[in-house]
């Protein structure tokens, strides 16, 4: 069996054995006067799937973007795959630029994550295959042929082998999102972050994306998923985090948080999405 025939599984990360792959401690973030994240802490163990639930505007996207390096928390400590940044220690100038060493540390943290956007954000001028190989070849300096080979395996995994040479506009929404997932996996991240990956999709293509994500969970990828797909959360999540008003209101196993929520806010939220009428 050649290496490329092997199913692509999550790269093993050896920090301290048994240590969580993702650890967020007292993450704080405000936009102007508005405190969006107020002391959020949680861990994700290796191979674990954490689903983040919460009403609109509760800070889910901000939390995920903070983990993925797209937003800089005001304070808190994030450790991913053995790389740690203590945000209280950063000293950005008034244009938000960090001193070189701090910037490199922040980049190293971001490099541990793969990000799947709500609106896929595929590079419109690149084919499916080139979208996936862009990071490995250009940023990581991987051998182009090897990167393409790896990309083809990833495409097979998300069921899009025959679409390798198409441009994003030639694909359906569900297919585009699956390419987005393959692009994130090609980074060999310690954790894959999903921000409502299906909420911008036509209903009939939601299933194919969730199926791919379920496969990834089975292959032991560590994942943090923001979603309103309650069934997916119940069946796939190891851990559910319900956040509201920038704090973790309730957390636990899906059976517990989804089927027997303790907090009134969680109960109200679940009632709203499970029974919208």
């Amino acid at each position, binding site marked *: 069996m050649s290496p490329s025939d092997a199913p692509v599984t999550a790269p093993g990360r050896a920090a301290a054995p048994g240590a969580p792959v993702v650890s967020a401690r007292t993450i704080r973030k405000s936009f102007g006067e508005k405190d969006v994240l107020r002391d959020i802490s949680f861990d994700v163990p290796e191979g674990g799937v954490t689903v983040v639930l919460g009403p609109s505007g509760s800070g889910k996207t901000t939390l995920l973007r903070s983990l993925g390096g797209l937003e800089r928390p005001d304070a808190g400590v994030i450790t991913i795959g053995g790389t740690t940044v203590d945000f209280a220690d950063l000293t950005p100038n008034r244009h*938000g630029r960090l001193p070189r060493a701090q910037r490199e540390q922040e980049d190293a943290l*971001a490099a541990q994550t793969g990000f799947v*956007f709500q609106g896929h954000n*595929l590079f419109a001028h690149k084919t499916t295959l080139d979208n996936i190989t862009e990071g490995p070849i250009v*940023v990581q300096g991987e051998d182009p042929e090897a990167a393409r080979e790896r990309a083809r395996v990833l495409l097979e995994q998300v069921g899009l082998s025959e679409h390798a040479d198409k441009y994003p506009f030639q694909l359906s929404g569900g297919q585009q999102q699956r390419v987005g997932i393959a692009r994130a996996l090609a*980074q060999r991240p310690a954790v894959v972050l999903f921000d409502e990956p299906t909420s911008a999709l036509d209903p009939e293509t939601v299933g194919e994306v969730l199926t791919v994500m379920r496969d990834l969970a089975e292959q032991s990828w560590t994942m943090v998923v923001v979603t309103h797909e309650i069934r997916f959360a119940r069946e796939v999540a190891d851990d559910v985090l319900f956040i509201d008003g920038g704090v973790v209101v309730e957390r636990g196993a899906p059976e517990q948080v989804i089927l027997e929520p303790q907090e009134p806010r969680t109960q109200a939220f679940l009632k709203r999405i499970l029974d919208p009428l």
Partner: protein
Amino acid sequence: MITLPRRLAHLVLALAIALAPALLSAPGAAAATTTASTTPAIASDVFPDPLRVGTEGVYAPFSIKQGDEFTGFDIDVMNEVGKRLGVEVEYVATPWDSMFAALGSGRFDIVANQVTASPEREQLYDLSDPYVETGGVLVVAEDNPKDITELADLKGKKAAENLTSSWREVAEEYGAEIVGVDGMTEAMANLKQGRVDAIVNDKLAVRNYIATSPDPGVKVVAETDDTAQSVFAAKKGSGYMPAINKALAEMEQDGTTQRIYDTYFAADVKAPTWWDLVKDNAGPMALAAITVTIPLTVLSFAIGLVLALIAAMGRMSHAALPRAIARTYISIIRGTPLLVQLYLIFFALPQMGVDLSPFPAAVIALSLNVGGYAAEVIRSAVESIPKGQWEAAQTIGMSRRTALRRIILPQAARTAVPPLSNTLISLVKDTSLTSIILVVEILRQAQFAAAPTFQFMAMYGLAAIYFWIICMVISIFQDRAEERFSRYVAV
């Protein structure tokens, strides 16, 4: 969070260094050298060697440029003077209205172009003794629709004159309304076509025109009272004039001046047909297109795009200073005429010690101009790319610079191609303006060809065809580029 990538500045510097030799040895400066072969009669060390002489090259029969050769009455007199002084003479083709600006900024040392002596000029310049004396004549169209018969009739009529010539002052004195023209050829055409009512100009020049034109269509109706004396002019304090006057006096005495005069004013020159003219000049004009207009366009556009990219990044920067600098630059470029920019770079910079030859000066002026216009095109194209593209690039580990280069600019290029093609096509045509700063591009070459024959419609027509061909080729490339960029969008 776009800040100017620092290495882009290095790129520009590298580009400038790479281009420098090309700029310095670039074609376009009109200069021809005549070597003095006989032994000097008067040795002198007040003269630079070669002595650079400003002349129009389009004022028949005084100053004519044919290919690289200058001929004409003033040229022959100047050559003879040079020979007698033992200095090499080099001609710099210069439009009349730039003549004294160019003399002032040191583009050449002396003017030989029917400069009429006047008290004002005497104050500003060193003038030689006269080498020919002539008078003004009043010229009207053959049918004389406004019935002008004497200078007094000029009151309220339109007269075509060079704006900086002394004949303009004469016409104005008699109350004419002045229509500015570029030379005698153009003045005559305007007169025949009825766009002006009269011309006051040099008797000898007019006589030559009537004698050599296949179809003059104009007639002389009066002469001015006073005579005009043609002199050479140099900067004040040149110290040239004693030696030049001595040579002129000798030439007067030994009949050399008369002999030169006869070659131009007693001869019966047969004018070539327009077809001969086209045949003779299609080659030189194509050469001007290939060696001057096209390189000028390509270089200016390439450098201009780099400037535009830098200015666009400056405009989008978070820091106030780059934003202010970029904004000021764009505003100055877009808020002032290109012609004025050309004049400033070519004539004003030398007074501050920055002396550029015509081609590099033209490249600089046009690049700055393209940069100012294209900056806004690039900025709006970059800003039209969704923020998600930047973020996706960031999540795969790209720096902002790499993201700009590999993700944003390629997509922005699609939006920018049509407006940038317009900029490029305008640039091709704008290169013709550089003739004013002595660049011998297509139009200037056409003027040289047309001047001695007074048949400039054929030459301007030919010039138009050349410009049109270049612009058509660009349009074809534009279509190709648009097609290429539309591969990845739904149509």
